[in-house]
Structure formats: C-alpha cells, structure tokens
C-alpha cells in the first residue's frame, strides 16, 4: 500500500474519499475470479429483474385458461407452438408465463420472510446480547423453547387452520425462523462486546446506542448478510414445499411449488409441468447458495487467503511453464 503523498489530514481525507469505489472494484475483480459466484450473481440479478418486470416479459397472463389448448407440449415437440414456448398446463395456461410470475412469489416470500424474521431476530439478539441479565435470560429461554418446537408441524397446522395465503405463509415462516438470527446476533454481540475496541469505546465515554450502531452492528453485517442469504434459499424451498402440500400459496396466485403439485398428476404425459417449475426452484436456490458461499468466502479472511494462495500457485505454475517455453525457443531457433 502506498501512503498518500499529502501533508495534512484533511487533504488525505479528501483524497481517500472515493476509497469505497476501490473496494467495490476489488469485489468485482474477486467475483470475476470465482466463476460459480459470478454465475450465481448473474442468475440472481436476472431472476430479480424477471420477477420485477414479469408482466412485461411474460407472453401471456399466467391465469388465462384455454381449455382447447390444454397440455400443449413445448415448442420443440411436433405439436408445440411458439405461442406457448414451454407448453401449457392442464387448464391451458402458459407454462412460461406462469414460471416467470412464479419467481415473483418465491422471491417476494423469501425477501419478506428474511426481512421480518431477520429484523425481529436481530433486534432480539441485540437486546439479549447487549442488555444481558434478565432480558438475555428471558430471550434465550424463549429462543430455546421455540427451537425445540416441532416447527413445521405447527406451521402446517396454523396454515391449515387460519387458511393459507401469501401473508400467512410469510408470517408463519418468519415466526418459525427468527431464532437463528437471534442466536447469531447475540453470540456475535457477546463476542464483539468482549473485544478491546468496544471496551475502548466504552472507556472514552460512548453511550450504548453509539457502541451498538458504530462498533457492533458494522461488524455484524457480513455474517448477517451471509446468514440472510442462506435463509433466503431455505425459505424459497420451504415456500415451495408448503405450496406443494397445498398449504402455501393458493390459486389463482402462481407459485412454483403449486405448479409442481398441480402438474404432478400429469407428470407421465406432460413432464414439462413438473420439470420446468421444479428446475426454476432448483436454479434459484442454487444461485442463491452460490452467492452465499462466495460471500462467506470473502467475508472469511482466512479462507480468502487460502483461496488466493491456490490461485497464485496455479498462476505460478503457468508462468513457470511459459518461462520454460521461452527458454526453449532460442534453442530450437
């Protein structure tokens, strides 16, 4: 690192103003190196775009039925048409359009649950970790108790009783999943609280909000981000499973899990009904997982180092080969 060639602190500060851009670039460079991560990021971005602009992208209304064009195969079959590129389902609805709109539900549920559960969990974790004492004991008991609940069973019952809908699915999944964030936040807060730099902040007279938000939270962001993304993947799968069981998203809304459930009855004559939404779920979750594992990698300095070392070693070998080749050339010429 070259020190900035300036005389005063203010100048130096001014010169370093755009430092964050460098770190963004650095991140980009690293992403380029990690092919799976790159693929994941690209996939996720396009999925999000697809979900946001679904009404403009989808060729048909996902709910529009056409009983005369039921179970039409994808375009590459003899009977397939370009009108329904990926075929139609048992009600003659366009599979492609349904899959595009299905992304909306999956991503929306995922994001909503992660935000709700994450928000609540982090607040609880912060309270438990920072306030300590009885608050801590109470929140931890609560978390322990809820973790020991047969979560999915309860979720199924509640959904069945209250009646499944987008909102109830989000609420039930969030109620079922906030404990992870709570536990992680608490343990991170506890360990960061022990760290000398937090003690230093306390010694110079910082009040607790400043310590929490300036010292503790910024150091929590990267583990929380990784956890959130992993949970996102889990939630997408959970939503699909609930919808598959008929206790998640209800028609006429579309959801990949629901489409698999409906297509399952026809899977021996119209494989695309099950396969396409199934693949959509798998690809989405895989992309999220790829991004999560890349994030985990770059947020772990040790792992990052090792990754780099392997990269270097590979590059070195290549360079050596090149040098050997270079040396040989004059001999032959």
């Amino acid at each position, binding site marked *: 690192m070259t020190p*900035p060639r*300036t*005389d005063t602190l203010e100048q*130096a500060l001014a010169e370093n103003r755009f430092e964050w851009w460098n770190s963004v670039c650095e991140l980009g460079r690293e992403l380029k190196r990690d092919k799976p991560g790159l693929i994941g990021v690209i996939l996720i971005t396009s999925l999000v775009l697809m979900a946001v602009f679904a009404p403009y992208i989808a060729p048909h209304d996902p709910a529009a039925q056409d009983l005369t064009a039921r179970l039409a195969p994808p375009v590459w079959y003899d009977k397939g048409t370009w009108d329904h590129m990926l075929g139609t389902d048992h009600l003659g609805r366009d599979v492609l359009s349904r899959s595009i709109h299905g992304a909306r539900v999956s991503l929306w549920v995922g994001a909503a649950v992660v935000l709700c559960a994450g928000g609540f969990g982090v607040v609880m974790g912060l309270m438990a970790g920072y306030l300590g004492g009885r608050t801590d004991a109470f929140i931890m008991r609560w978390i322990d108790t809820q973790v020991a609940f047969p979560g999915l069973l309860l979720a199924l019952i509640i959904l069945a009783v209250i009646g499944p809908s987008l909102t109830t699915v989000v609420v039930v999944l969030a109620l079922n999943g906030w404990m992870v964030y709570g536990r992680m936040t608490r343990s991170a807060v506890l360990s960061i609280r022990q760290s*000398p730099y937090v*003690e230093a902040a306390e*010694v*110079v*007279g*910082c009040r607790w909000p400043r310590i929490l938000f300036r010292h503790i939270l910024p150091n929590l962001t990267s583990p929380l981000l990784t956890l959130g993304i992993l949970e996102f993947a889990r939630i997408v799968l959970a939503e699909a499973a609930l919808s598959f069981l008929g206790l998640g998203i209800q028609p006429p809304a579309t959801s990949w899990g629901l489409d698999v459930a409906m297509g399952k009855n026809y899977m021996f004559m119209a494989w695309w009904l099950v396969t396409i939404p199934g693949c959509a779920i798998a690809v989405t979750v895989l992309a999220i997982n790829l991004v999560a594992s890349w994030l985990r990698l770059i947020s772990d300095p040790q792992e990052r180092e090792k990754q780099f070392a392997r990269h270097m070693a590979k590059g070195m070998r290549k360079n050596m080969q090149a040098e050997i080749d270079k040396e040989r050339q004059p001999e032959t010429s």
Partner: protein
Amino acid sequence: MTGQTLEGRSDLPLVDVRNLSVLFDAGRAGFWGRKRLTVHAVENVSLDIRPGETLGLVGESGSGKSTTGRAILGRVPVSKGHIYFQGKEITHAGKNRVRELSRDMQLVFQDPYASLNPRMKIIDIVAEPLRVHGMVKDTKAAAKEVARLLELVGLPPDAGARYPHAFSGGQRQRVGIARALALKPRFIVADEPVSALDVSIRAQVVNLMQDLQARFGLSYLFIAHDLAVVRHISHRIAIMYAGNIVELAERHLIYDSPVHPYTRALLSAVPVPDPPVQRARKRITCPGEPPNPLNPPSGCRFQSRCPYVTGTCREKAPDLTRRRPGQMAACWNC
C-alpha cells in the same frame, strides 16, 4: 477525608485505593448446582498514585492486576473497599459519573491489533472521545485536533485517513495512546501496553509515554508482567500475587533489596541476556503454581510455594506493612 497521606508525603494522591476487593460470580458447581462459585480476583488491595507519578503494577497472569486497573476506571463492580480520585470517592460511580470521569481517566490497551475497530479510520478512532463528549462539532475541527494528537504521538498527520490494518503494532499502539490523550486526562491506566510488541519497538512506546508524562504531568498505572520494562518507567512498583499486593516500594528498593520471597523469586526468574552473568546468578526456585482463584487458601496466598512457610502463614493472611521508608510488604517472615 482523604487528607491523610501514605508514607508521610504531603502531596495529595491523585488516585487512592483502599482495601479494594473484587469478586466475580463464576456459576455453580456440585451435582445439584447448589454451590456458588466465586472468583476472588482482587482482595484487600490498597495503593495510591500521585500526580505525575508512574506506579508499576506487576504480577503474573491471573494475579488481578488488570482487574485492579479496571476497577479504578469503574469498569468492574467493586465488592469491598473504596476508590478515591482527586479526593472524591468514585467507588460505586453511576454510569454518568463514569462517563464524566472518562475525561480524566483513560485506558491504553495491551493488544494494539484488537483495540482499534478495523472498520473505522484512524481519524474516527482518535476523534471518537472528542465527539462523544461534544468537544468537536464538525469533521474539520476533528481533523485539526486529530492531526495535533497524531503529531504528539509521532505519527504523520495523513495517517488519520487510513484504516488500522495499514499500520504496524508499534504504530497502532501510538494511535491507542493518541485516543487516550484526546480528552486530556490526568491519569492513564496502561494495561500491558508493550507486552505484545517486539523488543526493538517496545522502547519507542515506553519512551513516548515517558515524554508525554513529562510534558503533561500525567499519572500512570503501568500494568505489566515484565519486571524489566517496568523498571524503566515506574517511580514505585507494586507486586501482585493471587489477588493481593505482596510488596509495594520505591523502584530501586524493589530491585536492589526486595523483601517478599515472591518478589525475590520473580526477580530471579527473569533471565539476564548475558550468558556468564546468567549462569552465575543465584536462582531462587519457586515450585508449583499459583492457587486456584476459585478456592484460594486461607492465610497467605503464597504459602504453597514459599520456601519460608510457617504455621502462621497457613492461618492468617499478612497485611501490607512498612519495612523501611518507601517499602511495604505483606509477609510474616521477612
């Protein structure tokens, strides 16, 4: 009320600690968890620090030296005893009082790597005390003040624009000192400030601290486990063992005529970097290990390792008593 003086000196102590005890709850034991465990971290410790003076506090790990330092700063609840600062009692100061006191009392940490928030720039780290006490209003003022502080500790002003990871251990420790100086305190607890540094760097930090003391009339409580470094900076030295002060004396008295057997053992345990001298030194062996703080022995804490142990030692804990001018020790037999 604190007008009385120790050792007949007339100047008022800046910090006065009387019979300090710190006990920690350490969970429970036993099959049914009926037995409560208590760590006897510090027991019956008395010491004072005068304006412009450095008191070296030396002890092995677990001897309670850091706890003593933190108790003075109000960071550890005091179980027994009293602490006075500038004649006022601060033993059980509330949160706001501790915050106020932070302008007068500061802490320098042992680990220069962990004590700086890796996500904050140096300017933010050093300016933080000023900001939270409302002493600077904007970034410009902060930058000016931080530049001054950085110069004070021998760092270039542009260092403020960088993150801690760009600096070496010695430089970081200077940042830590700059942060401690920001509020212009009168008293600094330095908790092993050089233990984590390389030998060739230590002197830089120690000398800096000495210069700052000369310039601003600071008082230090210099905590260390290393008798050799303490010798250079301290005016008086206190030796702690298992939560007690066993000897408290003027510097030269500790090194030239130590009284307590533990002090002597400690001195003889430090090897001298000169082979013929080291070979010739008489070593006082001190077998065994310090007692378990959960269950300290009755009587003198050093009894299990002391070569001169007698029955009295096993029964009653000795008090710190005066041996000669400027030297006190807690021992029945010396």
